């Protein structure tokens, strides 16, 4: 099997089959990451489609210096941020983070508490923390690589995760009080 980087190089050389293989391989990740970034299936599908559609043009900018997935995640994260920014004016995009989706998965909606908690937790986090978290949920993603995607140091990623913990604990404390 060809490596991602190899396929990307062929794509740049005009090999349509390589491009198709590359997308086939990575669409799911882009979609999943998109969902975690945006909290809605529809948004995630639109995002993944935008990314796919833009790739033929964008791939010229991939110079093979980072892993292809690192580069692809960066593209996806940037596109998601665009989306967030655009929708920020009307409504907060992920205000009901995942609720819709969890509701749809009736079997999994074991308790109302869990989903409210999730939505509540996601709402309480600023975008940059959500982004970092969403990246780290991807299988095999290390702090170092997430740092590369986001253009920050590994230390920043550690710090952000600590920050997420802190905020979640604070949230938890508030729940106990209530």
């Amino acid at each position: 099997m060809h490596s991602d980087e190899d396929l990307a190089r062929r794509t740049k050389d005009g090999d349509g089959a390589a491009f198709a293989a590359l997308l086939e391989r990575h669409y799911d990740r882009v979609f999943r990451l998109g969902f975690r970034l945006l909290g809605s299936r529809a948004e995630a599908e639109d995002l993944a489609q935008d990314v796919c559609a833009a790739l033929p043009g964008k791939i010229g900018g991939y110079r093979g210096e980072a892993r292809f997935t690192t580069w692809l995640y960066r593209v996806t994260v940037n596109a998601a941020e665009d989306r967030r920014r655009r929708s920020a004016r009307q409504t907060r995009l992920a205000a009901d983070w995942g609720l819709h989706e969890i509701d749809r998965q009736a079997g999994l909606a074991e308790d109302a508490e869990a989903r409210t908690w999730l939505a509540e937790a996601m709402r309480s986090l600023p975008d940059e923390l959500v982004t970092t978290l969403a990246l780290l949920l991807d299988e095999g993603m290390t702090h170092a690589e997430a740092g590369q995607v986001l253009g920050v140091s590994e230390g920043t990623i550690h710090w952000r995760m600590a920050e997420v913990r802190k905020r979640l604990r604070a949230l938890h404390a508030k729940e106990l009080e209530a």
Partner: protein
Amino acid sequence: MTDDPLDRLAREMTRATPEVDPAAKARALALAQKNFEARQGTGSDARPMSDRPRQGAGFWTGVRTMLSHFPTRAALVTSTGLVAVALVVTFPALRDMGPPPVVPLTSDDSEAPLVEPVVIDALPAPLPAPAPMLADRAAAVKLSAPQMELAVGAMAPDALYRPPEADTEAFANADENPVKIAAEAPVSTFSADVDTASWAVIRSSILSGMMPPKDAVRIEEMVNYFPYDLAAPEDDTPFRPTVTLTQTPWNPDTRLLRIALQGRMPPVAERPPLNLVFLIDTSGSMQDADKLPLLKQSFRLMLSELRPEDQVAIVTYAGSAGEVLAPTPAGDRATILAALDRLEAGGSTAGQEGLQQAYATAAKMQAEGEVSRVLLATDGDFNVGLSDPAALEKFIADRRDEGVYLSVLGFGRGNLDDATMQALAQNGNGQAAYIDTLMEARKVLVDQLTGALFPIADDVKVQVEFNPAAVAEYRLIGYETRALNREDFNNDRVDAGEIGAGHAVTALYEVTPVGSPAVLNDPLRYGAGDAPSGPADELAFLRLRYKAPGTDTSQLIEQPIPATVTEADTETRFAAAIAGFGQLLRGSDYVTGWGFGDAIALADGATGSDPFGYRREAVSLMRLADSLSDAN
């Protein structure tokens, strides 16, 4: 497990993440593949000619050769692969056309990361009725009328030309108009402008993933690209002004003054017979899908709008030279279409006589009471050599005085010689438009055929005198290259823009009322003389001058502009959104705290009926620009 809230969150997030919908995936992948293929067709192959892009040996290289017998001194700008077609005439009908296929944009091989948007999905449905259309520059046809002499005067020549050595795309523009103090400089004067090429350039750039160069952004051309629902003149005057004063979207403390002129649309039936000579570049680079094939498609669209008494001829240069279609009545469609089908791009760029031959053919066709126009189509490679702008102007102006007009349409993306197109257009010889899709071709060649061909008013000048009692400061948005001196307004020898049948022209001022916190300039310590004496309920006084085509004496239209602020209607809001968008693209100092998102929201809420889909396309484009601006 619940001990670490982060673990819990990760688990819940993962659980909430839905499965991929195979249908959505298939759609996305298919779209990606389509875009990929579109790029391959146009990408690196797009510039087979070695002297194309970076060298700046574009359009005018050709012109130089073509007109080489002219003594020349400096040269025109050069740019890269612009296909210029000359002609822009159209009839408002063409309603039976289904939505034309989207022609993939050519892409540049630039190194910059590209974003390929794909936004153009929905082409507008065929229009229901011929609405008055905007047209690109009205270079319009004049019949007999000796024209103004070589109108270079009005514009700063250096705004029009760049030295040929320039390696980059050349754009004509000037610094943003500054804020003026009404008490010190109450009068603002400019020439009407119905060019729209800037919009297509911007679109093309954004669609290929790059923010347009600031100098390519001419706000008046962006605003005037779009048709607006304006009241048409009821009497015999050629156009009718519509004036509104509303809140400025990007500054709560200023007002937006919109002055829109709607040209009369004479019944198409009354138009004189047309003689059209297509002068087509057939050099090798023209074979790209968005060049010669697009030109052929466009030509077919237009042909169906011509009348039996009209005549068409085709002259080619570069790849193959000569008259490939002798003057033929438009009713003889079979002959014309056959000649069109025979056109092939290929071979070297030779043939220097194209332009003269086209004009000679047009002269043969010319008869009393008819309108003749040469339509020059090229991608910027053609050898129409002309190294001296003055010589080109003179040649074309002389022909114009003999009743033959020239329009230039650019095809192909990226390599354009915008400044040269401007030079042609602004010198009164023709409309310059840039065609990148069949939809654009339809807009320019079909929807606006009438307007571009039939001038209804020449030398249209706009003068606004602001009342210092009501206005502290004002600023004209756009029209930088169209500024006139105050005294030029009443000088009939000073050239200005034409308005063609059905054209509309919009100008926007940002006006700061007296006492507004937005006033930028402090009052003078040592007094500015008498206090303003005008009635405070009058914002300004509008004066318009124009000449009926073929006359030498101008007519004057005057009307006061009341200081009453009204609610912005759809048309005003859309124009404001585009002006705001343009200023963002230019990095204007006057628009702060207001971004692409605001422009998008404003435009999105003001698309109106939008029968052609131009406004929806604009909104998509603005979204894309928003993304690009963040990515950079």
